[in-house]
């Protein structure tokens, strides 16, 4: 009987456990998590923090789900190290566990700002349901806020401030939000969305240090230009540090993420990885890539499990990811790898509609759609087909994209 151990009960670990049980009915499966609750919907916790969604619908599995599938679930269990020669997982205070095949699905932890007082009371990071509960409780009592981190997670803090009636300044390092993926035209639509909910974007700013009162509670953020922004609530989302410290000495190849191939195999026999923390071989992109999104993590968990159960390279990970922002009255969708590529096309259609497509070697590798998401299916199809289309930007920038208008594919 094969013994599978999965470290992490986020969507990637949990989807792997489910798939393993389907593929290998007799196996012994253990899922270890250092959180105190089984899988919940991480992409909906922001709605709880906004005060819009009660707790119950955010839970995905209760402990009964694991019992029904004969999966051992270890809550509140922190893995401290892995011996990949002896094939043993060591935990903080729950003993050791032997494995035949191991899946590392431990995601990341938000990075703290390396500035004075960045751990003061009232300064929040956002990853767990517990974080969301704390953010909601504090946001309900707060009047003024500061947000740091001009990316996809920072904007969730802006939405929380907006929904909770906090007047906030969003301090950004460059001249716009998510400058790696958006030009000034696209970003301005997002800035207007922020202003509409009461959050003011502040450019060429950031945080030099935080000020606190005598009780150690944050009172202001001071930016590098010496501007002072009063706040009793602060949200910091400047990036993730991957949870791999327990793998020190285990021989796994790491390079800002755990390196895996398209089958989710690491360089060490019988050790797989899935989810946010992987740097996987992206077969559509033709190089190693990273992806922090729910759908991608779920699929990586499934693919890892299929290959673990098959003890073979049975199925490869081939996926076009999506990441939406749902906080404003216009929709926003980022797909694939919008910050990569060697060429791009973009157009603004109205004050709330904008599109950008990123190409690599003539093929679409990602993009951002604001306002009108209707071309997403066509663009994702072209990505999957790996079709060379960069020479036909006009067709791709038409308000309504008709793939029949593209010139037939040339023989390569």
């Amino acid at each position, binding site marked *: 009987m094969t013994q599978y151990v999965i470290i992490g009960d986020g969507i990637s670990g949990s989807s792997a456990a489910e798939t393993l049980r389907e593929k290998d009915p007799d196996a012994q499966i253990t899922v270890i998590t250092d959180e105190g609750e089984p899988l919940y919907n991480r*992409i*909906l916790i922001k709605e709880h923090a906004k005060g819009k969604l009660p*707790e119950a619908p*955010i839970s995905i599995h209760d402990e009964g789900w694991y019992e029904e599938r004969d999966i051992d679930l270890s809550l509140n269990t922190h893995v401290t190290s892995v011996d990949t020669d002896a094939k043993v997982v060591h935990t903080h205070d729950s003993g050791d566990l032997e494995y035949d095949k191991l899946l590392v699905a431990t995601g990341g932890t938000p990075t703290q700002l390396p500035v004075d007082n960045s751990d003061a009371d009232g300064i929040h990071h956002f990853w767990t349901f517990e974080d969301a509960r704390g953010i909601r409780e504090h946001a309900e009592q707060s009047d003024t806020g500061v947000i740091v981190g001009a990316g996809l997670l920072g904007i969730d803090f802006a939405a929380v401030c907006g929904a909770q009636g906090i007047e906030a300044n969003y301090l950004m390092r460059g001249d716009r939000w998510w400058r790696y993926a958006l030009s000034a035209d696209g970003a301005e639509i997002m800035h207007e969305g922020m202003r509409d909910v009461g959050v003011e974007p502040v450019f060429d700013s950031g945080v030099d240090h935080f000020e606190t009162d005598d009780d150690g509670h944050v009172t202001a953020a001071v930016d590098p230009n010496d501007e002072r922004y009063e706040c009793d609530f602060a949200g910091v989302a400047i990036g993730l540090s991957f949870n791999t410290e327990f793998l020190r000495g285990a021989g796994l190849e790491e390079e800002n993420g755990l390196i895996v191939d398209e089958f989710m195999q690491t360089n060490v026999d019988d050790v797989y990885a899935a989810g946010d923390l992987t740097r996987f071989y992206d077969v559509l992109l033709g190089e190693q890539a990273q992806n922090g999104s*729910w759908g991608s993590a779920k699929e990586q968990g499934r693919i890892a499990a299929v290959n673990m159960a098959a003890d073979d390279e049975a199925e490869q990970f081939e996926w076009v990811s999506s990441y*939406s922002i*749902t906080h404003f*009255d216009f929709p926003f969708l980022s797909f694939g790898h919008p910050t990569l590529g060697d060429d791009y096309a973009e157009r603004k259609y109205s004050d709330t509609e904008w599109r950008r497509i990123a190409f690599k070697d003539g093929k679409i590798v990602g993009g951002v759609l604001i306002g009108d998401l*209707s071309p997403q299916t066509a663009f994702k199809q072209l990505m999957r087909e790996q079709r060379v289309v960069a020479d036909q930007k006009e067709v791709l920038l038409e308000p309504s994209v008709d793939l029949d208008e593209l010139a037939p594919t040339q023989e390569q």
Partner: protein
Amino acid sequence: MHMATSELRGSSLKLTRIESVSADATVRHVDQLESETLDTFYTALEGNRPITTAEIGLNAGDIIVGPEYYRVDLM
């Protein structure tokens, strides 16, 4: 608060905008929808095209979190 309803002609489903969610609801974020379902969801919101239960991959009573919250109702 007004309830905006996107009527989907000739179909068996409609999306109804809602303002609050009960504790026993099944809630999904748009990023949990398959690409085609997402497309159908947004098309349905614009009221441009009829959809059927089989096509959309959603169940009556489901709540979808998009730019607003919407409940999937049988017509």
